[in-house]
C-alpha cells in the first residue's frame, strides 16, 4: 500500500452506523483512502448509516466535495444512508460557488442531529419521541 498506516482517518462503529470524524486537513489521497475504507467497512459491518463530521474542516475543495458525493452514492448502493454534519458557513458558501451543492447527500447541523436523522431514516425500534412530546 502506498499510504502510511497512520495516515488514515479512523472509522468508528456505533450500533449499525459508522462514524467518521475528519480532524485533519483532507488531502486527495486521504480522501480516496477514506472512500476505500468506508466502502469496505460498510460491507463488513452491513452498516445502515454513515455519519461524516466535517466540523473541523476549514477548506473543502472541489475534489473533496466530489469525494463526499461519491461516498454518499456508494453508500446508497450498499443500502446505507450518508449524513454529512457540521459544515462551516464559509465551506458551504464555497461549495455552492463551486457549483457543488452535493445533491445526493443528506446534511445536518451537528453530529447529534445527524444520528437522529439516521435513526429516523432507518425507522428503528427505539425512536426518540422528543419532537412529538406526546404525553400519552
Amino acid at each position, binding site marked *: 500500500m502506498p499510504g502510511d498506516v497512520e495516515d488514515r482517518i479512523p472509522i468508528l462503529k456505533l450500533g449499525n452506523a459508522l462514524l467518521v470524524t475528519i480532524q485533519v486537513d483532507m488531502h486527495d489521497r486521504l480522501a480516496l483512502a477514506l472512500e476505500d475504507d468506508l466502502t469496505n467497512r460498510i460491507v463488513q459491518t452491513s452498516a445502515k448509516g454513515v455519519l461524516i463530521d466535517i466540523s473541523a474542516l476549514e477548506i473543502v475543495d472541489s475534489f473533496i466535495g466530489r469525494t463526499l458525493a461519491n461516498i454518499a452514492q456508494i453508500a446508497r448502493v450498499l443500502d446505507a444512508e450518508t449524513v*454529512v454534519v457540521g*459544515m462551516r458557513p464559509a465551506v*458551504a458558501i464555497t*461549495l*455552492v460557488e463551486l457549483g457543488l*451543492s452535493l445533491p445526493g447527500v443528506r*446534511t445536518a447541523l*451537528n453530529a447529534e442531529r445527524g444520528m437522529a436523522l439516521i435513526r429516523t431514516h432507518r425507522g428503528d425500534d427505539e425512536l426518540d419521541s422528543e*419532537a412529538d412530546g406526546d404525553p400519552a
Partner: protein
Amino acid sequence: MSPASASRLPSILDAHGDEILAEWVERLRDGVADDRISEVERARQASGFLQRLSDALRGSTVVESDSPAFEPLYDMLVDISRSRAVQGFSPTESALFVFSLKQPLFRFLARAWGNDAEGLGADLWAVTLLIDALGLRMMEAWQKTREEVIVRQQQEIAELSTPVVKLWQGILALPLIGTLDSSRTQVVMENLLESIVQHEADIAIIDITGVPTVDTLVAQHLLKTVAAARLMGADCIISGIRPQIAQTMVHLGVELNVISKANLSDAFALALRRIGRSVVRTKPAAPAAVDSHAG
C-alpha cells in the same frame, strides 16, 4: 517672453487685496442668495482663500498652478468644497465660489497693465489657467465627497436590510428588502449561515415580500442561498412571493425548485409542522373553528 512671464498678480494682491476681497464678497452675495451659509462664514472663507493665494504667489513672478506652494490653498479649497457638498450645494454653486473671483482680479489686472495689451493678454491667460485649475480641484473634491456619501449609504443599506430573526426554537426568518445583487447575496448568505449555526436552526424562512423584482439572476442567488443552507443541514422555505412576481417568474421561465409559500404565516405554519409543533386555540372562542388538534 520676459514680460509675459512676470505676472503682476502677486503685486496686485499685495496692494489691492482688501478691495478685491470686498468686490469678490459682493459678487458672491449677488450670485447665490440663500441661507445655507452665513454671510460672515462666506466672507471668512473668501478672505482665507485670498490670503493663501497671495502667500502661494509671494516671491514668485510666475503663476504656476502645480507648484507645491499652492498646496495649502488646495487643501483649503477641498475643505470648503466638502462642507458645501454636505450642505447640499449644487456643483455650479460650489464652483461659482472660485470662478466669481475672476472678474475682480481681471479688473485690477487691466488697470495694472494699462495700455500694454500684450502683457495684459499673457497675464490674463496665466491667471485664467490658475482659476480654472482651482475650480476643477473644487469640483473634484465636491464629487468625491458626494461619492463617499453614496458608498456609505450603500453599506448602511446592505447592513440594515439583512436581519435574521428567530421566530421559534429552530426556526429562523430572513426578511429580504430591496434588490438582490451578488454582493448583497453574499452578505445575506453569510448572515443566514452564521445565524443557523448560532441558533441551531432546522428551518430558515426566506421572505421576499420586500424584493421588488425577481429575475433569473435574483432567482439564482436565492437558490444559492438555499443550497448553502441545505449543506449546513437546514431546510429553506421561500415565502412572500407577490402575485405579479409569481407571474413574472413563470413568464421568464424562472424555476425555484424549493418549497415556496405565498406568505410568511403559511411558511411559519409549515415550519412548525416540520419540527413537530402545532398551534392550538386555548379558548374555544367560535364554535365552528375548533382546531382539529384540540382534545
